[in-house]
């Protein structure tokens, strides 16, 4: 019983998609750990909302290879994310940075809420008049 439960738990703990191939593992465990974190922070540019860690597409594999190449060259994590952003734009980052250009998108919900509240307040207050 215990064994069966363990087997089920083990199965459940397996990642749903394991796109990173065994051959991609880096020899240095510290670099491998950084690589895996970076794979999760970079979006597969031809997929929808999927980090390169989870994609089997050629481009995702190419970006993972590039991450490893930069790590071996001694780049910092931030430098690697910058390297990718220079080439693929903000969209390559799973968490795109906020900029003046995109500020409207970020604040739109808040603005809409304030406007909505304003309108509701006005309508309610306006009733007696």
């Amino acid at each position: 019983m215990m064994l069966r439960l363990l087997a089920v738990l083990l199965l459940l703990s397996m990642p749903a998609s394991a796109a990173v191939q065994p051959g991609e593992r880096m020899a240095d465990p510290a670099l491998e750990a950084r690589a895996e974190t970076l794979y999760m922070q970079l979006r597969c540019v031809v997929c929808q909302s999927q980090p390169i860690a989870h994609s089997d597409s050629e481009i995702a594999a190419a970006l993972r290879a590039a991450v490893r190449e930069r790590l071996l060259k001694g780049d910092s994590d931030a430098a690697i994310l910058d390297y990718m952003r220079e080439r693929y734009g903000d969209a390559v980052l799973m968490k795109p940075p906020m900029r003046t250009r995109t500020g409207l998108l970020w604040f739109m919900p808040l603005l809409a809420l304030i406007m909505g509240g304003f309108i509701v307040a006005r309508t309610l207050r306006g009733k007696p008049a």
Partner: protein
Amino acid sequence: VRKNLPYLIPFVLFALLVVAAAFAMIGGKSVPANRLADVPAFEIPGLSGSDIGQEAAIVNFFASWCGPCQGEHPLIKQLAEKYTVYGIDFMDKPEWREKYLTQLGNPYKKIGDDADGVAGAAWGVVGMPTTFIVQDGAIIWRIDGPVTDEIVKSQMLPLLEAK
């Protein structure tokens, strides 16, 4: 009318959003000869960034497994009769490339073997084929997807002919 003014605010905001989106789209893709980026540093078997000289040249990413690459190959060959074309074979196998180029002809001055795709990433490639025009150490034009007769005539030749 004044009382209805607040109701207009969401519409005004929406219009602003549309304008902002339009600007973002126009800013993102421009065809004329600007410096899009520096020619990236890369080094793969057969080709590196330092091989690419100052005069105008074409850099063509291709792969034997890519159908549209075969489709544009005759045009690449035509361009190679007059201009320098470098090829970068993206995530391919040497024996596949051999077969592909034996069958279709080899228009490339030099071919880089980008087996794991690092050069593709360095150039910001998202799919096959992708073609660049470079000059004076800069990328001045790119197209994602196959070139066509029309694109060669209207976009590439004017840039390649210009001094």
